[in-house]
């Protein structure tokens, strides 16, 4: 069993979101040229890169709805994290925040309490990590969110 795991850490001000780096097979900063008028980083729809079309997941509105992040808009160019869903469908997770790749000890992850784990929160939050007394990080199950078509 690995002792550490890699994740993309998104700073949402009072709290952080972790995306499991192993869920993504690549990243892109813009779609293929000439892919189509609705094929862009913005808005809903699709995202085509290297000839492959992905269903778009706009992380920012999801996170705002879930966590009401207070982090200021950093004006950072969006990045598309590319992901294969279990159903074979491809997803592009559009991240419009600054992020960093981190390696964290597995032993610091904590499952949600059993009651929450069995319910809605457990379907989208894989685990949490306490980063000091006043900060919590949420390891989001982005694949479950994408495949289930649901948001927390």
């Amino acid at each position, binding site marked *: 069993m690995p002792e550490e795991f890699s994740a993309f850490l998104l700073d949402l001000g009072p*709290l952080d979101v972790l995306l499991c780096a192993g869920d993504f097979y690549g990243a892109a900063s813009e779609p293929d040229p000439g892919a189509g008028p609705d094929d862009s980083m913005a808005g809903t729809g699709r995202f085509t890169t290297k000839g492959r079309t992905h269903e778009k997941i706009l992380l920012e509105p999801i996170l705002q709805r*879930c966590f009401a992040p207070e982090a200021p808009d950093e004006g950072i160019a969006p990045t598309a994290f590319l992901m294969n869903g279990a159903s074979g469908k491809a997803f592009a997770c559009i991240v419009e925040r600054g992020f960093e790749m981190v390696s964290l000890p597995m032993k610091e992850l904590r499952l949600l309490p*059993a009651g*929450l784990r069995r319910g809605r929160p457990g379907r*989208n939050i894989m685990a949490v990590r306490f980063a000091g007394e006043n900060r*919590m990080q949420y390891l989001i199950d982005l694949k479950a969110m994408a495949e289930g078509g649901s948001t927390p």
Partner: protein
Amino acid sequence: MTSEELAADLERRAGAAEDTQPSGADVARERFLVFAAGESSFALPPSAVREIVPGLTVFPVPGCPAYVPGLVNCHGKPYTVIDLRVLFENERQAADQFLVLNLENDDVALGCTEVEEIVEVAQSALSSFAANDAAGRFCSAMLEHGDRRIPVLAIAQILKELEHDLA
């Protein structure tokens, strides 16, 4: 029956009566931890509470009902926080203390504003009631203590409601 026999009989009967008379120590009594969440007070058996922890930060968790403001970090472990004021009166109450419950299958803490006292009362001071409001659904009894009536929480019922609301 002679007077002596009569006296002996009376003494025997009195002794027997004393044996069956409940003394103060024999009356079944129960202890309760009484605590406040805002202006409301609640009671729990002390054995239901593992620990009282002050000053924890509550972290929000998406997808939870309003009476679950989030999680607290208690000794490095996440506990689901239940806000009783929202559950009972639909008013949010910022908690500054947390009663960590003694549960086998879940990790739950109740937010509270003050731990008031531990009271010991006769079982006769506990009244059951049938009400359809939150007090009826989430309480197992009403504790009569002085001129106060304090609901005794039915934790199992509250957790059942949470399970239903999270489904």
